[in-house]
């Protein structure tokens, strides 16, 4: 009842509730000074000169200081053929490529003083025409963001072949242009760091709010030319990441170098304005999709072109094609159909580089594909869920290799849809629509089904060509002399409750009480290498490694117990932290005491590795796990002003075996809340000059208490055949469907007026515009 599947309270809770968590901004070192960055006020320009007042000159640093010292630009190349490499000096060199790009850094005793100095640093620019819209930037003749390139395309990918003649007779042909707007990730804790030189260890120590300390260490090593062993990266408590902390930041490189250069501890905390203007960086896609279906609504083929605004540089380690390259392979979603062709373009623009926001590419793809399904349903005159059901991969085909070679591991996709239809009570919504609302609002219902690849393995990432391919995930497990258990893992928990869930896995295997199990994570000095926490991978990969390590420890314990109990190995069982053979038993603590303090009692052939082990783990399949869900929502639309109220929201999800259902539900609630932001509120627009227009939280609208309704969850639990305990990755799932399901529900509400919205976020203004267009052009 504390192991896998138990709804136990989190070990993290007490310190966080008392304000005793230690986040990076809470770290203060003696003699620490503060940094402020000077950022480009323009989107695209050559830097002509800097004017720095003499009295502060020694507190200001530019690329002219860093480059001669050997600092190298950030370089994240994709191995995919044709990828154009961008180089990003962590402080702009001769050119700025987005508004908000760091061009200088200042150092002072306080942040306020550092900003005072920053305000005196004046750069002179020769402005160049900015590339603001990705379609214009991709067109021939657009000014190049990187002069030595021939165009602004980081990478073009193609999946599948042309299939027009195969579908020439298709009775249904649907074409849609679909746009999703640029978003900002906005964890409540921004990025931040404290850097210092540890004289005793002769190491640069960087405390940083990151999801991937080992990768930041690798990136720093590349940029600073320091050997890895001279760098230690520590992620303390991290206040949410959602992808924003899953990369090497230019500010980390600058601060690390400056710390070496100045020899004193330094701190930089990203402020909210910096985050909103210099890091508005995900989910900006444009789709041109044509789908073909038969008269029943069965999909015959999907033909798509997709553009992703990848911003000015390729981020380390995921590269600039992290969204577009995925689009090509995941657009078919959970559906089975015979023809598919997709071209994608990662477009380089004068905006901040894109970074991996929770549900990378998947939220957009789901938004596009699920609109298409609803459009097909409208064309053939059926309920949208019926058309979904017709096309979903059925359970009898599992495991299933889809049209792009994705290997769906397990599950009953249609059942999640049927349960959602029943759970949302579609029939009653239809009756309600016929009756009309007393307040005149329009009610609509929408569905969206998706599957989410998580914990992708080595082969998948190698195929994407990213510079950091994950291999075996390792965990170190050590039983202490008093029978406790220390786990060391290179992942980083920042809200996922892994200190608890990993302990549950270890408890499941060894029976050691949860309170005696401690997870050390997020510190390169103390943990095995890991690519970190991203891509819904930690529970599957590192959780699997915990189980593997604990099983090996269990085996060693049994061998020692057999000797001490004078029993045959095959008769010794481990249960509840106790090793037993017949009537004789011995506790793990007694064995541990023997190993550490009374080794003379051990068998002669004891494993000299003792009660400490590092185990590596990979699932049986490199394809990753596929969780899936159907989301359903009922909305009311005020057609006079365009406001949308969510009346009901249901998630029917299957993430395989749940280690801790409370944590699973928290992830889903949180994902849906962010998805509601994506669907209805969040947007970081740019003006024609490439200036970000949402620079405060009054302009960049995060959903709050009154925007996020109570969300109902129904669990299904189909184990993955390939992982420890059958767990699947699920951290990103919640965010994938809301924009699709809410858009479909809004369109269902508007259909009586003949209006359709296609772009995200679905704002009141867009709803009114759709209604106006419908009045201007009544449906045939």
């Amino acid at each position, binding site marked *: 009842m504390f192991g896998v599947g138990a709804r136990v*309270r989190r070990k*993290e*809770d*007490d*310190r*966080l*509730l*008392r*304000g*005793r*968590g*230690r*986040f990076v*901004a*809470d770290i*203060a070192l003696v003699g620490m000074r503060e940094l402020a960055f000077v950022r480009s006020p323009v989107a695209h320009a050559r830097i002509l000169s800097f004017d720095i007042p003499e009295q502060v000159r020694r507190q200001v640093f530019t690329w002219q200081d860093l480059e001669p010292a050997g600092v190298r630009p950030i370089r994240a190349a994709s191995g995919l053929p044709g990828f154009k490499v961008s180089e990003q000096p962590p402080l702009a060199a001769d050119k700025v490529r987005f508004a908000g790009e760091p061009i200088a850094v200042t150092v002072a005793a*306080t942040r*306020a003083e550092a900003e005072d100095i920053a305000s005196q640093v004046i750069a002179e620019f020769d402005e160049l025409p900015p590339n603001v819209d990705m379609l214009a930037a991709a067109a021939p003749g657009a000014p190049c963001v990187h002069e030595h390139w021939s165009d602004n395309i980081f990478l073009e990918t193609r999946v599948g072949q042309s299939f027009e003649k195969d579908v020439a007779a298709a009775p249904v042909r649907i074409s849609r242009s679909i746009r999703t707007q640029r978003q900002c990730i*906005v*964890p*409540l*804790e*921004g990025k931040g760091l404290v850097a210092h030189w540890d004289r005793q260890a002769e190491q640069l120590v960087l405390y940083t709010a990151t999801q991937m300390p080992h990768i930041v260490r690798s990136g720093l090593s590349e940029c600073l030319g320091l050997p890895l062993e001279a760098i230690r990266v520590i992620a303390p*408590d*991290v*206040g*949410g990441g*959602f992808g924003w902390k899953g990369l090497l930041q230019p500010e980390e490189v600058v601060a690390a170098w400056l710390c070496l250069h100045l020899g004193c501890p330094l701190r930089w*905390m990203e*402020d*909210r304005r910096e985050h909103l203007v210099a890091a508005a960086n995900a989910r900006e896609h444009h789709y041109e999709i044509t789908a073909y279906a038969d008269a029943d609504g069965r999909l015959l083929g999907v033909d798509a072109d997709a553009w992703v605004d990848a911003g000015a540089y390729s981020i380390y380690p995921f590269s600039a094609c992290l969204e577009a390259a995925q689009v090509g392979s995941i657009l078919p979603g959970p559906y089975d159909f015979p023809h598919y062709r997709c071209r994608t373009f990662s477009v380089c623009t004068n905006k901040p580089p894109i970074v991996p926001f929770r549900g990378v590419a998947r939220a957009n793809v789901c938004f596009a594909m699920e609109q298409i399904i609803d459009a097909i349903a409208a064309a053939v005159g059926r309920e949208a869920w019926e058309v979904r059901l017709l096309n979903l991969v059925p359970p009898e085909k599992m495991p299933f290799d889809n049209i792009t070679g994705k290997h769906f591991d397990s599950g009953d996709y249609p059942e999640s849809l049927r349960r959602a239809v029943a759970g949302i009570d579609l029939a009653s919504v239809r009756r309600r629509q016929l009756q009309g609302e007393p307040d005149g609002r329009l009610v609509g219902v929408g569905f969206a089904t998706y599957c989410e690849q998580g914990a992708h393995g080595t082969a998948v990432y190698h195929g994407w060509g990213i510079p950091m391919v994950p291999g075996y995930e390792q965990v170190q497990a050590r039983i202490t002399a008093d029978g406790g258990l220390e786990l060391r893992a290179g992942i980083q928990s*920042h*809200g*996922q*409750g892994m200190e608890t869930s990993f302990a549950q896995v270890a408890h499941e295997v060894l029976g050691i009480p949860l309170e005696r199990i401690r997870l050390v994570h997020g510190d390169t000095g103390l943990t095995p290498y890991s690519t970190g926490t991203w891509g819904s991978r930690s529970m599957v990969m590192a959780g699997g490694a915990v189980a593997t390590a604990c099983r090996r420890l269990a085996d060693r314990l049994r061998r020692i117990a057999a000797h001490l109990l004078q029993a045959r190995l095959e008769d010794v069982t481990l249960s509840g932290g106790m090793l037993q053979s017949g009537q004789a038993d011995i506790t793990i603590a007694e064995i541990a005491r023997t190993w550490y303090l009374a080794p003379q009692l051990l068998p002669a052939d004891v494993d000299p590795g003792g009660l400490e082990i590092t185990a590596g783990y990979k699932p049986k399949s490199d394809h990753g796990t596929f969780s899936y869900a159907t989301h359903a929502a009922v909305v009311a639309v005020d057609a006079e002003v365009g406001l949308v109220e969510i009346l009901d929201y249901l998630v029917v999800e299957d993430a395989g075996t749940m280690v801790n259902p*409370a944590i699973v*539900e*928290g*992830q889903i*609630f*949180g*994902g*849906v*809340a*962010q998805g509601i932001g994506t669907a209805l509120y969040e947007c970081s627009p740019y003006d024609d000059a490439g200036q970000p227009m949402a620079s*405060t*939280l*009054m302009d960049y609208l*995060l*959903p*709050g*208490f*009154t925007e*996020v309704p*109570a*969300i109902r969850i129904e669990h299904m639990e189909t184990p993955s055949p390939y992982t420890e305990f059958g767990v699947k990755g699920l951290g990103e799932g919640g965010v994938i469907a809301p924009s699709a399901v809410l858009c479909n529900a809004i369109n269902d509400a508007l259909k009586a007026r003949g209006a359709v919205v296609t772009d995200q976020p679905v704002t009141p203004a867009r709803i009114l515009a759709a209604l106006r267009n419908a009045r201007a052009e009544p449906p045939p």
Partner: protein
Amino acid sequence: MSLSVLLSVNGVAREVALDDPRVTLLDLLRERLGLTGTKKGCDRGQCGACTVLVDGRRINSCLTLAASCDGARVLTIEGLAEEGALHPVQEAFIAHDGFQCGFCTPGQIMSAVGLILEGHAGDDPERIREGMSGNICRCGAYAGITAAILDAERRLAERNRAEAA
């Protein structure tokens, strides 16, 4: 220019000399008094992470100059619970899973304590949501927090009844 402010922080009198009047109450707590439980989320009153009680009322400590707080009674997350025992609002946050990463949590808890003291919301979840609307949780634990506040209100009312009797 040197200023000195005298405040009561979590029941302890603290006198702090300020060499720069730009210091906010938030920075005073975090950087000068070592009370880092109160968090900085936006530094402009738009997220609620820095919520503390001043003279019994919840405020955004990032928008309040420390110098303006001379003589004030400040309660922060560190002063809410006695050693060992959690405050009923904190207990309820555990029971109803009102947080994930924990960064906005001190602000949510102090805001919830303030809301309950105000006594306007009662047991109406809609009014609780409106009353908490200044506190953003990017992990999206809103439903859990709302349930936690309802629960904590009940517990506090029971405790008050018991104490009265």
